[in-house]
């Protein structure tokens, strides 16, 4: 009974062995606070404070502090919103879908991916508030019985968005927390003082009994089932923010799969960008191995081809439709004033990932880091291209326009990375970045199999 031995292994006074080695390795990440860590944390907090200050200033003065120029009504905020929603995809995909497919290699990365999902959704959700003109009235978008006799418009994609994002956030947080439970219990058993109190509360009385494990794996299974359609639905709904409009360049049926693929693409890239330094700094090479990198980069290559296909297909449809406004919008996308964004997008998202055709590069960590960072940049630009260039070149050429973000928007944009990084840094010190229980399960599993083989 592996569950029994695991439960035993989790007791503090356990004899030394493989399990406790895992414990020590993984929990070490949570211990001690280096000056480098503090510096990084301070930088992220500072950027969040700066962005918060700019945001208050923006609420006070008005959205005009941004670079919006008629007719471009959506800018960096929506671009960044879509970007973070995309990032939020990897976590659930890795945890839920790969769980259902029994892709064991996910175990090394699922915890951090789930955390990223939660943090990315929280970051993204803020941009909805930052973007709207009257944040103080934004609760109007929630359908609840009220004395004002107001109701919401269920036909609006923005209304769908509200539901999609809030549902996704709820499920992600629950999923994340349930997966974390056994590990919190391990941490609880080793912690002292305040931390002990915190973990005791959060562990919800986890003892690692067979009954608890049974319920836990049931819960994970069911939540995976529940979360799987969400992976597809959230970004589909976000894509409909665009696809349901009549804006040339937005109005396309391919948007839902295109956005989902893009989201998975960017989400995986972000997991790699974040985990490579963490692995290096905390010496987790034994847990995140070439095996993982190879699988992840293959996934990147696949999704890169999907988004590349979508880019090409958009142009094909524009040409094939015979609609002049559509053709003009796409021509200007590639060769107009925003050519830089478009070609950055193509280079980062379609050309750079082709390096992963080579097995050596699939496991060459510096290459993976560079390419995954490029993909993150490219995916931000993808949204920039879709949103800004399309809005700037609509049906009435008299009111075409040009948009340049202002420093206010860029500060808030930078603050979103600060916010995300800040949460991740805090997470690293509070919870195990790799799911201890699942790794152990794997270790035991492998040990058992190797025993059988000989």
């Amino acid at each position: 009974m592996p569950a029994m031995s695991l439960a035993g292994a989790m007791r503090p006074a356990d004899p030394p062995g493989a399990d406790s080695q895992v414990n020590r390795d993984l929990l070490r990440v949570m211990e001690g606070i280096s000056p480098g860590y503090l510096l990084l944390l301070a930088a992220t907090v500072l950027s969040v404070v700066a962005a918060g200050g700019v945001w208050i200033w923006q609420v006070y003065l008005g959205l005009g502090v941004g670079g919006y120029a008629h007719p471009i009504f959506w800018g960096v905020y929506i671009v960044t919103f879509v970007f973070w929603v995309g990032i939020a995809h990897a976590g659930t995909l890795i945890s839920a879908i790969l769980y259902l497919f029994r892709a064991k290699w996910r175990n090394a990365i699922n915890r951090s991916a789930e955390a990223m999902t939660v943090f990315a959704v929280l970051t993204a959700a803020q941009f909805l508030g930052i973007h709207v003109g009257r944040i103080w009235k934004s609760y109007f978008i929630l359908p609840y019985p009220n004395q004002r006799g107001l109701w919401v418009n269920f036909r609006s994609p923005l209304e769908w968005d509200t539901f999609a994002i809030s549902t996704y956030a709820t499920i992600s947080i629950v999923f994340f927390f349930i997966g974390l439970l056994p590990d919190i219990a391990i941490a609880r058993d080793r912690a002292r003082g305040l931390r002990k109190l915190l973990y005791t509360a959060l562990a919800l009385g986890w003892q690692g009994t067979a009954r608890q494990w049974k319920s836990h794996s049931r819960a994970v299974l069911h939540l995976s089932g529940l979360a799987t359609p969400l992976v597809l639905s959230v970004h589909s709904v976000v894509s409909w923010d665009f696809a349901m409009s009549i804006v040339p360049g937005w109005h396309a049926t391919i948007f839902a799969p295109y956005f989902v693929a893009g989201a998975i693409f960017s989400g995986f890239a972000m997991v790699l960008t974040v985990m490579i330094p963490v692995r290096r700094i905390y010496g987790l090479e034994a847990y995140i191995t070439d095996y993982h990198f190879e699988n992840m980069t293959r996934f990147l290559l696949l999704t890169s081809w999907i988004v590349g296909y979508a880019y090409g297909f958009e142009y094909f449809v524009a040409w094939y439709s015979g609609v002049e406004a559509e053709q003009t919008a796409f021509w200007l996308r590639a060769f107009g004033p925003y050519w830089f964004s478009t070609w950055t997008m193509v280079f980062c998202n379609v050309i750079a990932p082709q390096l992963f055709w080579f097995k050596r590069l699939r496991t060459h960590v510096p290459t993976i880091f560079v390419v995954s960072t490029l993909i993150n940049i490219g995916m931000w630009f993808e949204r920039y291209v879709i949103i800004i260039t399309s809005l700037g070149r609509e049906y009435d050429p008299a009111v075409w326009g040009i948009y340049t973000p202002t420093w206010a928007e860029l500060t808030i944009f930078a603050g979103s990375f600060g916010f995300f990084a800040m949460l991740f840094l805090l997470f690293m010190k509070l919870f195990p970045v790799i799911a201890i229980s699942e790794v152990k399960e794997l270790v035991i599993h492998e040990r058992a199999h190797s025993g059988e083989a000989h």
Partner: protein
Amino acid sequence: MPELHRRNFLKLAGASAGATAAAGCSDHVEKLIPYVVQPEEITPGNPVIYASTCTECSVGCGLHVKTREGRPIKLEGNPQHPINAGRLCARAQASIERSFSPDRFHGPMQRDPASGALRPIGWDEALSQVAEALGRNPARAHLLGGDPGDSASRLLDRFAEATGLGGRTIYQPFSSEVLLAASERVFGVRSEPLFNIEAADLVLDFGAEMLDTGPSPVEHQRQWAAARDIAAKPGGGARLVYAGARLSLTASSSDEWLPIRPGSEGMLALALARVAIESGAGGALGLGLLNGPLAAAGVPAAAKSCGIPAADITRLGRALAQAGAAVALPPGAAVTSRRAIDANAAVLLLNQVIGAIGTRVQIPVPERSARSRASFQSLLELVQSMQEGRVDLLLVHDSNPAYSLPKALGFESALSRVGMLVCFASAANETTALADLVLPTPAPLEAWGDVRPRPGLRGLVQPTLRPLHNTRHLGDALLGIGRALGEQAQAQLPGGDFLAWLKQQWSGADWRAALQRGGIYESPRPAALRFDGSNIAAIEPDLTGSGNLTLLAFPHSLLGDGSGAALPLLQEIPDPITAVAWESWAEISLSTAERLGVELGDVLRVTTSAGSVELAAFPRGGIRDDVIAIPTGQGHSQGHFASKAGQGLAGTPRGVNVVDLLPPLVDHGSGGFAWLIENAEVARTGRHRRLPLAQWSDNKRGRQLGEAVTLGALAAGAKADGADGHGDHGAKANGHGGHGDGHGAVHEIREPYNPADDAADAQYRDTFHERGEAVAKESPYRWGMTVDLDRCTGCSACIAACYVENNIPRVGEDESRLVRQMAWLRIDRWVGEGEATLETGRVHPARSRERLGQVDIRNSPMMCQQCGAAPCEPVCPVIATYHNEEGLNAMVYNRCIGTRYCANNCPYKVRRFNYFDHQLTKWPEPMELALNPDVTVRGQGVMEKCTFCVQRIQSARQNAAARGENIADGEVQTACQQTCPANAIHFGNLRDENSEVSQQADSPRGYHALHVLNTRPAVTYLAKVRRGEVKS
């Protein structure tokens, strides 16, 4: 502590709630105070309308001032007035801002010798100071100013006489001196000719800019539109030919544009007269002229000097001879050269030859008016005597000489030798900045007055607003000075105040009736003319300066001579031709721009013998290669909006004053200021400036936006079934083939109003309706609009009216640079059909598609189309925009949370977003007093747009309900429709098939903008008719 009882608790709770509420109140508590004694004519909530007269320019249009609770909120035209017939231009619409300008003086001001700043002073002290200075030596005192109005001007004369004043000089930047002198030379009568376009079938505009800044633009726009009414005149009606160096607003509305060299108007007129006589016009008189003044006027010479093909002159000359009713308008201010009198006389001669004098051109018996006495020559003499120290006291009224006179004249240095400068002015300007004493006058809406714009016509100006500040009418101030001078002067001055003097001037008329009608409107009596063609010869003007581009300083359509620059609305409305707002620009041709290596917005240095300025280049196709054109009106260093003071840059001029580039030279025959005088040297500075530009491209790429149809196609389509109705319009681009129903030329891009759509709309609407409640009853209305592009000149009066009516904020220069203007109504200006070019890499707006000598300009006013299937409605998550049962696409500002999705999804881009709290934070006091109380003031973060002046519909609904009827056709007029001088806009109920708008929408020229998107707009555009060039 006593026990807390229920009652005590309630008291405490109540008190603390009250305290909290009180603490939450703002410091500034405004109270609604009911009238103690209700004025008889005022019913709170109902407007009271007073007849008055506009004093913005010399035309003198009749006004209806709409007031609410004692406050003017909107100016509309007086329908009874013979000049404007109920319509107004943009400048008149905006002039309401003058009363509420932050630049106004709150009381008399005196310059503090120590600090050099103005400080308040009492009226009595101020008047006695002037009287003292005047009394010392009246002969060394001088009056200088523009036209203060008829009776005021008479009082000024009386004052000058009574006090023994050294002299009075009348000066107007754009005066009619040259035309008056020409009229005297040709007809022996010094009288300003009146032109009637309505009766004409061929109109030649020699740079008069008759639809724009010409002699009577509102009147001429109306007449021009009526003369070309395609419904009444299937042949297309009158043709307009424009001769001038740039494709101006008038040229844009013409059928043929002769891009002649500036200054060659006289040669062209004489050559045309010659050809016309040779083709049979003019009779015996003409034959006499051929041997006389026209002997030297050859077509080849004229063609060479004008820079156009001789064949065009011959063709037009013949057409003039064949036309039944041709008329020619003399050159305007921009082309007033040192030989302007010859050009003006030549055009009058041409009118004589083609038989226009006495019919289309009336020369009335002149009346003595301030305008007719304006003289630049006498101003030169005044400055001369100032320089020589012969003027001790200068009294300046109704003008701004420190701004409007050329720097090279040295007015400012001459002022330093004048003992005391007294300014009668309502608001701060460049001259009051130099004044020793400022005696503030009331704004036009606060004062009594009258005008005599043309013989037979007298307009009354009556106050509609209690003076906001401690001001006195110019007349009252002068009478006060007279009283302070002592008994001798007082005896010669009229007793009482200015109003008494005014009534005395009107003693022959029924005062009450005149007050109600706005004045006395009689036809002018024609003068006895003695034609003398002997002294007419057109000579090419010689220009000074060494540059290779002729400097064309043309009057700005909106700012005029610069008096409009203080009004933020006129600054904010983009120039109708270039779409530039808040800035100066220099128009050069595309090839000149290429030669200089400049693009749109690159800063040029323009140098003449008189000075040098730096301003942004505006390369365009519609200007001659040898010309650089700069508009007047900008370059003020004073004023909240006129200068950059409102942007925190006090003293920094906004744009440049083109007058600074001109030497103070005059027309040789009349003494009028010569605007066309200099060749300019143009060089690039290497700097770039992003212009506040309201339009990106004039290439409509064949999309269904500003459609046009040729006369031939229109006639063919209307005649027979199955005729080829495709014409050369843009239907090809939308992929619709011919339907073969042959119902008119632009039929395939039109989807006529169909009552069945209303059912679909109702269903669509129901999905929005709160929790599925069905709409109770079907509405009898479906509001709709038509815009006739064949009538629209692009003058922008509708935009100004819309701003004032709907409390639309003015956003200022910096915001305009990001095209964040809030205009609910804009005018897209298209050049031809355009083509779907694939431009690359341009960050700047697209290159001008105008071509020299070609006119195919389509002005397309664009407002909310109130779509039946509106793309903006389904995307709003909070139902802040929805479809009402009358077909309006309504806005609920209070619901809007500012997601801006609606604006993204609007293909017409007519939605505007409040990026800032424009009205409350940016409007300096007391501008908010002009707000229309019927329209919500929108705050920061909400979307807004046109709703067909829904407040006017509501008001009409109440009136109709009181009668127990439905709203009658014509009972609701939108602000844009009401003011349109060309009557291009119609509004009404599409459900009523007899309504005017239904009839209009039924026109074979009707089309819906961007029809392919199936938005089912309530606005039907009527395609412009291309009449082609004039045939002989």
